[in-house]
């Protein structure tokens, strides 16, 4: 009856069990406000920048083999950071696989609707072509390996949902594609180390080609890594 209708009360946000620290929330709020104040004062007090690094990048851009300054910085001037980043992505996949190795549950196969499958038959090749375009255009305009790789990975996830295709748990082909980026990068690095005395120091006439080769490997690797991470997160 009318008396049994309880008013809706939204559940309050759960807190960290405050063992001996009952004022956690106000203390954290005050600390966050203080942090914001200190950082804002520091940001306001920054001196006017003397642009030295952008000028350096612009001057050496013709020697780098590409025309896009961001791609030049990522894959030529700071290529070691990118190598470490691709290796970190591979390590994450290895760690995620190791954390779920004993779970043993298969990915549940979703039942596809025919409309979704037809939609993906139209959209999938288009996404692949656009990803290839992004990879190629990274030399002249905004684009590059990461954008193309993430687009390919998203296409793979979309394909998994639209067509009901589920990947096997582990396979040699998967391992090969996952590690392709790191292996290519290290191979180019070792090649330049043996040819010239510096690791990842591209010879100038070969710089553009080497960058494209590395970017292609990284694209496939990033796509596979993102897809595998998604399937591991989803596994029941």
């Amino acid at each position, binding site marked *: 009856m009318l008396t049994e209708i309880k008013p809706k009360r939204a559940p309050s946000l759960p807190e960290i069990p405050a063992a001996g620290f009952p004022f956690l929330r106000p203390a954290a709020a005050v600390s966050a406000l203080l*942090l914001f104040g200190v950082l*804002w004062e520091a940001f306001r007090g920054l001196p006017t920048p003397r642009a030295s690094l952008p000028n350096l990048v612009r001057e050496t851009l013709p020697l780098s083999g590409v025309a896009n300054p961001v791609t030049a910085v990522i894959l030529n001037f700071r290529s070691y950071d990118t190598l470490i980043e691709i290796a970190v992505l591979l390590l994450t996949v290895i760690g995620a696989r190791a954390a779920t190795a004993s779970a043993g549950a298969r990915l549940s196969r979703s039942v596809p609707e025919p409309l979704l499958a037809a939609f993906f038959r139209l959209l999938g090749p288009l996404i692949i072509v656009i990803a290839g375009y992004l990879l190629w255009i990274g030399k002249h305009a905004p684009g590059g390996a990461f954008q193309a790789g993430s687009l390919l990975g998203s296409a793979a996830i979309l394909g998994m949902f639209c067509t009901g295709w589920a990947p096997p748990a582990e396979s040699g082909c998967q391992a090969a594609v996952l590690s392709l980026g790191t292996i290519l990068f290290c191979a180019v690095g070792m090649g330049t180390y043996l040819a010239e005395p510096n690791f990842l120091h591209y010879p100038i006439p070969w710089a553009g080609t080497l960058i494209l080769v590395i970017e292609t490997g990284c694209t496939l690797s990033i796509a596979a890594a993102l897809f595998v991470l998604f399937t591991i997160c989803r596994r029941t």
Partner: protein
Amino acid sequence: MEPSDLYGSVGIALFALGIYGATALGQFMRQVLALNVAGTGVFMFLIAIAHRAGTPVPDPVPHAMVLTGIVVAVSATAFILVLIGRLRDLSDSSSAQDDRDD
């Protein structure tokens, strides 16, 4: 106010908001969401700094750093989500509450 000042302040605000969420809230998923918000705030601050460099084209070195940072942030988030799921799998047999600090 220049756009870079505005976006820099917003980045700092997001960072402080994310840090509060990561320290004061309870469930793991909420803390991971708040940490991602904080990371996005840091990226916004870096790109605002790059934009105020005073050159016609913004400084590409922080752009490269933030691009690397986005990929590493996604990797870390995926890994910690896998760990949360695994922790839940290993400990879900006895607990009856749904809103516990898991």
